[in-house]
């Protein structure tokens, strides 16, 4: 008897999350970008519908580039001195469809920028570029809890993706995101149970699961990538099997991690391929949104995705 193909059909579907509101919805973005919506495992095109290919956002800071690797400094050049030109360069020169801004300036080590000033920066950024925005905190919990709500308000109605809510501190952020019509990044430390728990807590506050994106916290290639890889695979399998509380798309901050590594500093190609392979490997594990830094790495990953999604 001829062998029959093993075709897995899953009962669950990943929620579709939209980022960016166009003018017909009261925003000023040029596009609405959707992620998620698939009902099969990554790249298993024959088993279901992969409604939206993974998307890539370019990451910038709200202050002149600090702590960036030499190669990134070279590729962005003078634009790094002014975050607004930096964002513009990403869009105009490198074709960025999404901008992810980290509010680094509010960190005590980088100037302690006030919530008010941070919010002003977001207003300016929204005027400068019309790509949908992702806004994330500096990592200083105390300041983030004031700065991010201020930024959220400044971008009211633009349907940004805002983060990050963590287990110990999510309430203020959820309230802001609800009030201002955004979506939320829920961050968990490579832990499927915390990811699930956090999603439940957030949705209990009234923010629907279709407005949550999970940041599973990743390591770069050679720096613990496999931990996130397996957590994402496990969570995605659980979600497709019917666990709605894990059925949110994944966001992975690939650029930050990849360019921090020793390998990325050896030569430009080594750095670019490090970011590239970190990204494509995580796509195989289920990543829906990749936040990247080097335009060549972005173009290599995009090329690969075109090949995958070619009809």
């Amino acid at each position, binding site marked *: 008897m001829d062998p029959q193909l093993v075709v897995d059909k899953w009962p669950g579907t990943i929620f579709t999350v939209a980022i960016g509101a166009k003018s017909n919805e009261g925003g000023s973005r040029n596009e609405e970008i959707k992620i998620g919506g698939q009902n099969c495992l990554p790249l298993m095109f024959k088993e279901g519908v992969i409604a939206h290919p993974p998307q890539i956002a370019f990451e910038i800071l709200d202050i002149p580039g600090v702590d960036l690797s030499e190669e990134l400094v070279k590729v962005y050049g003078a634009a790094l001195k002014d975050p607004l030109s930096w964002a513009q360069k990403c869009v105009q020169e490198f074709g960025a469809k999404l901008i992810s801004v980290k509010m680094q300036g509010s960190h005590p080590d980088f100037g302690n920028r006030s919530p008010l000033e941070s919010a002003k920066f977001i207003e300016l950024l929204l005027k400068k570029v019309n790509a949908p925005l992702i806004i994330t905190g500096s990592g200083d919990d105390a300041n983030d809890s004031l700065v991010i709500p201020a930024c959220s308000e400044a971008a009211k109605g633009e349907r940004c993706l805002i983060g990050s809510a963590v287990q110990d501190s999510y309430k203020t952020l959820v309230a802001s995101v609800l009030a201002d019509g955004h979506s939320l990044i829920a961050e968990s430390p490579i832990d499927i149970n915390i990811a699930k728990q956090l999603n439940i807590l957030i949705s209990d506050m009234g923010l629907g699961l279709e407005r949550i994106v999970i940041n599973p916290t990743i390591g770069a290639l050679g720096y613990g990538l496999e931990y996130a890889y397996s957590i994402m695979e496990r969570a995605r399998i659980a979600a497709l099997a019917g666990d709605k509380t894990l059925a949110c798309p994944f966001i992975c901050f690939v650029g930050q991690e990849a360019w921090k590594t020793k390998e990325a500093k050896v030569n430009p190609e080594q750095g670019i391929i490090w970011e590239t392979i970190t990204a494509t490997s995580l796509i*195989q594990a289920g990543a829906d949104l990749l936040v990247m830094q080097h335009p060549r790495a972005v173009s290599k990953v995009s090329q690969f995705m075109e090949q995958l999604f070619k009809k």
Partner: protein
Amino acid sequence: MAFSGLDIYKLLPKTNCRECGLATCLAFAMQLAKKTVGLEKCPFVSEESKNILEAQALPPIKQITIGVDDNHFDLGNETVLFRHEEKFRNQPGIGFVIEDSLTDAQITQRLNKINDFKFERVGQELKVNLVALKFSQNEKRYLEVVKLVLKQTLLPLVLICQEAQVLRQALVLAQTRAPVIFGANPENLNLIGALAKEFNAPLVVSAADIVALTKLTEELKTLGVKDLILDTGDKPVAEKIWDLTQLRRQALKKSNRALGYPSLVVVKQSDPYQEAIEATAYIAKYAGIILIQGLDSWEILSILTLRQDIYSDPQKPLQIEPKIYPVGLVTDKSPVLITTNFSLTYYTVLAEVEASKVPAYILSIDTQGMSVLTAWAADKFSAEYITKAVADAKVKELVKHNNLIIPGYVAMLSGDLEESSGCNIIVGPKEAAGIPSFLKNLS
């Protein structure tokens, strides 16, 4: 899917004759399922049952050894679809295609590079595994190239040649190295199959889909060829991943023995980035041998690192021996840095201490392979633990100062640790990248 005791019982004589030393056939079946007795203990089991039970005991994907001596490696014997279900066992072999149309000088140059591809990461050596020689049309040239390659590399070989005549001679030249034959297809099956049998060589079988592949492997099995490797030919990457996934599922979910062999893929991308992307995609999705062309060391390192990541054991993080490590020309004034015994953490710290050029001691604490924060949360990186390790390593005899440097992430340990160890605690940087400037400012 292993047989349960009950499954086995159904195949036994059910006479309870006790010849096997157990009270009943059922008891014997239970022991057999646990593999605590062998089937040979029952003299009455039928031939038919014996065949079923023996086949059942084999791994669902055959383990195949490639090459000889120090450079040999195993493929197959995989048991899961996802690494978190247990682990992936045998790392895929990475090989380089060399065409016989190249000149001797070009080939030599390539082989030199290939021989040099050895990297060290987190205490493990990362190596490439194979050289694949591609026959184009000239028999004499191909045989020359085989000789040249045999002389210039010790890596196992793949002979990419579908002409039985040429292949036979190449096999004669290379037989002590146990080369892989690539390979058999529906047209040349009998001739190439016979050669594989004669030279006892692993054989790559190519057909476009699993139905055709199943037919070929069954025929080859009856011809007596034992070690097979499966190939579904050139296809776009998404289809290739689908094929590789099907092969793995057929073997594991359907116990389809005809497809229970490792697989091979050839990556044909001229851009090194796209080549690495595709190669790593196949590493994650079950490929057994991956043939590429690229020779840039940055590309190869990225491929080998991803392979190391994916094939690491999820249950057992890589660890180093917990003890005190001197770095550089240490003296009794050298600083002492404390970290975990999780390989990744230790080697990251080590690299930065080396980069600082400040001689120092690194005391690695037994955290059972957990990273700093995880270990701290699990109480494996506590003040007591560290104090004990400091005493065990006789730190106070090695250095005259009384300072310990702890990772920035566990600054909260300072007070307790100062009390329990009697040392001055200095809080170091959170990220290892901060170590060089930290150590320089310390002195």
